[in-house]
C-alpha cells in the first residue's frame, strides 16, 4: 500500500532521477522520444501491478510484467537503445526509487521492496529477451539481404562482361572500342566486388594480417585505372595528387579494399560532370589520404552514423550500406583512422595511417636494440 502510494506520489521525481542515473550508468544520452516513451511507460505499469497486488506479486502479475516488458524492450530497440542502455535503465530506476525512499524516509516495508525488485528483475529479463530476439532477427534478415545484394551486383557485372565478350566474339562490334572498355570495366568491377567480400570475410573472421610495405602511389594507381573508366561514363573529372615518396606498412588487400570503396562511393555520389580528387601527402609521422567528392554534402545529423553497418544515405547505394563499415574496419585494422567532413558542395573522406619507409625500420619497430 505504502510503496504503491509512494511511487504514485513521486512519479515525476523518480522518473527524472532515473533518467539522470541512466545517462550516468549507460554513458548515453537518450533522445527526447526515448525519455518520453521509454521507462515512464514501464513505471506506470509497475504502479498498476503494485496497486493490484499490494502484499505479494503473483504468477499472473509476473506474466503481465513479462509481456509489458517485452513490448517495452521492443520499443526501446525501435528508439535506438543499446542492450546496455536497456539493462542500465531498469537498474537506474531501482536506484532512484530506493534512493528517494531513503531520503524521504518513506515507510516502505521489506516485503514491498522485495516485490519491487522482483518486478524489476522480471522486467529486465523480459525486455532483454525480447530486445535480443528482435535484434537477432533483424541482423539475420539484413545478412540475407546483404548476401542477396552482393549476388545481385555480381550478376549484373557478370552479365555485362559476358554480353560484351559475346558481342566482340561474334564481331557485332570491333575490338578496341567502347564495348571492349565495358568488358574490361565489368571484369574490374567483379574483381572489386570479390575483393570487398573477401575483406569482409577476413574482418569478420579476425584473420591474421599480412603486413607489408607498399607505396601509396602504387595502390592508388591500381584503383585509378578502373575509376577513370567509370568517371568517363559520367563525364567526371578525376584528379590524383600523390606524393610519390609516401608509403605505409599494412595489409595490402584490406587497404586496397578500403580505398576502393571510398573511391567507388565518390564516383557514385558525385553528379555527372563533377570532380573527384584523390590526394596523398605526408603530415608529420602520418600518411594522409583524402578522397574529395561533389556529392552535395552529407546531412550533419547523418555523419555520425555514416560508418555504421547497413546505414544507407541514398537509394542508389549498392551493397546495402556496408561499404563504409568495411572501409572503417579495414583502416582501423591497419592501425589507421578514417573520418569524413563536409566541404563546399561535397565531402571529404580522410584516411590517416602511420607513415613507413621501405628502407629503414620505422621508429619503435626496430627489435634489434638500435634506436633511430
Amino acid at each position, binding site marked *: 500500500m505504502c510503496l504503491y502510494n509512494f511511487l504514485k506520489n513521486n512519479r515525476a521525481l523518480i522518473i527524472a532521477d532515473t533518467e539522470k542515473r541512466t545517462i550516468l550508468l549507460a554513458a548515453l544520452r537518450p533522445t527526447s522520444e526515448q525519455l518520453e516513451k521509454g521507462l515512464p511507460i514501464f513505471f506506470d505499469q509497475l504502479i498498476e501491478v503494485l496497486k493490484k497486488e499490494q502484499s505479494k506479486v503473483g504468477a499472473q502479475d509476473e506474466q503481465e510484467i513479462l509481456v509489458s516488458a517485452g513490448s517495452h524492450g521492443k520499443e526501446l530497440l525501435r528508439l535506438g537503445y543499446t542492450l546496455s542502455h536497456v539493462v542500465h535503465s531498469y537498474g537506474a530506476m531501482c536506484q532512484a526509487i530506493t534512493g528517494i525512499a531513503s531520503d524521504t524516509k518513506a515507510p516502505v516495508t521489506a516485503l514491498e521492496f522485495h516485490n519491487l525488485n522482483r518486478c524489476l528483475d522480471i522486467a529486465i529479463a523480459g525486455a532483454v529477451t525480447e530486445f535480443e530476439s528482435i535484434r537477432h532477427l533483424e541482423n539475420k534478415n539484413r545478412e540475407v539481404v546483404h548476401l542477396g545484394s552482393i549476388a545481385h551486383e555480381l550478376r549484373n557485372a557478370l552479365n555485362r562482361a*559476358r554480353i560484351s565478350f559475346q558481342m566482340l566474339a561474334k564481331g557485332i562490334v570491333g575490338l578496341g572500342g567502347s564495348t571492349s572498355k565495358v568488358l574490361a570495366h565489368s571484369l574490374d568491377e567483379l574483381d572489386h566486388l570479390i575483393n570487398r567480400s573477401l575483406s569482409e570475410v577476413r574482418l569478420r573472421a579476425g584473420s591474421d594480417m599480412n603486413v607489408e610495405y607498399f607505396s601509396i602511389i602504387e595502390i592508388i594507381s591500381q584503383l585509378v585505372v578502373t575509376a577513370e573508366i567509370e568517371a568517363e561514363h559520367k563525364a567526371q573529372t578525376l584528379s590524383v595528387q600523390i606524393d610519390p615518396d609516401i608509403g605505409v606498412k599494412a595489409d595490402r588487400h584490406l587497404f586496397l579494399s578500403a580505398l576502393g570503396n571510398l573511391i567507388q562511393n565518390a564516383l557514385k555520389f558525385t553528379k555527372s560532370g563533377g570532380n573527384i580528387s584523390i590526394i596523398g601527402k605526408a603530415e608529420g609521422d602520418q600518411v594522409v589520404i583524402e578522397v574529395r567528392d561533389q556529392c552535395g554534402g552529407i546531412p550533419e545529423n547523418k555523419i555520425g552514423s555514416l560508418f555504421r553497418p547497413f546505414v544507407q544515405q541514398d537509394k542508389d547505394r549498392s551493397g546495402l550500406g556496408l561499404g563504409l563499415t568495411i572501409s572503417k574496419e579495414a583502416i582501423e585494422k591497419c592501425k589507421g583512422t578514417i573520418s569524413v567532413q563536409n566541404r563546399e558542395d561535397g565531402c571529404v573522406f580522410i584516411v590517416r595511417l602511420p607513415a613507413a619507409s621501405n628502407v629503414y625500420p620505422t621508429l619503435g619497430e626496430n627489435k634489434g636494440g638500435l634506436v633511430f
Partner: protein
Amino acid sequence: MNKNILPHLAKQSVLVIDDNSEMLHLGKEILESEGFDVFTADSGLQALEVLAQIDVPNLVLLDMQMGDMSGLIFLEKLEEQRPEIVQNIPIVFYTAFDEVPKSKATGFMRKDGNLDKFISSVHNFIKQGTSQCSTPAAIHLKHIFPRIHYT
C-alpha cells in the same frame, strides 16, 4: 509516323531503361545491330521524358532496381501519365533478379549474360506486341494474353 497504326511500315523501336550506363551502351549496340531504333534512359524520370518526346516504341526494356525509382514505381507512374503505353506496348523487366513481383509488365528476362537468348526474347516480345496491336480490336484483348517469362 504513328507506329501503333502502321507497324509494318515503320522501323521498330525499343526503349531501354537502366541506371547503368554500360548496360545502356550494350543494349543500344546489340539492338541497333538487329535493325531497331534504340532509345535509352538512365532513370525512371528520364524515361518518362523520353517517352514524351518519341513515337510510342514497340518494346520497353525496364531495369528493376534504379537509383531514382524501382521498375514497379516506374510502371505505376507510366500508367498514371500514359496508360495507353502500359495497355498496348510490351513492357519487359530486364533484371538480375531471379523473379519479379506481379505487375502490369508483360514479362521479364533475366540478365544471365546470354546474348542469343536476349536477342531472340526481344524479337519474341515485339512479335507478341505487334500481333496484338495489328488490329484495333486486339488492343483491347491485350490484358488476356499470358505473361511470358524468358529466363
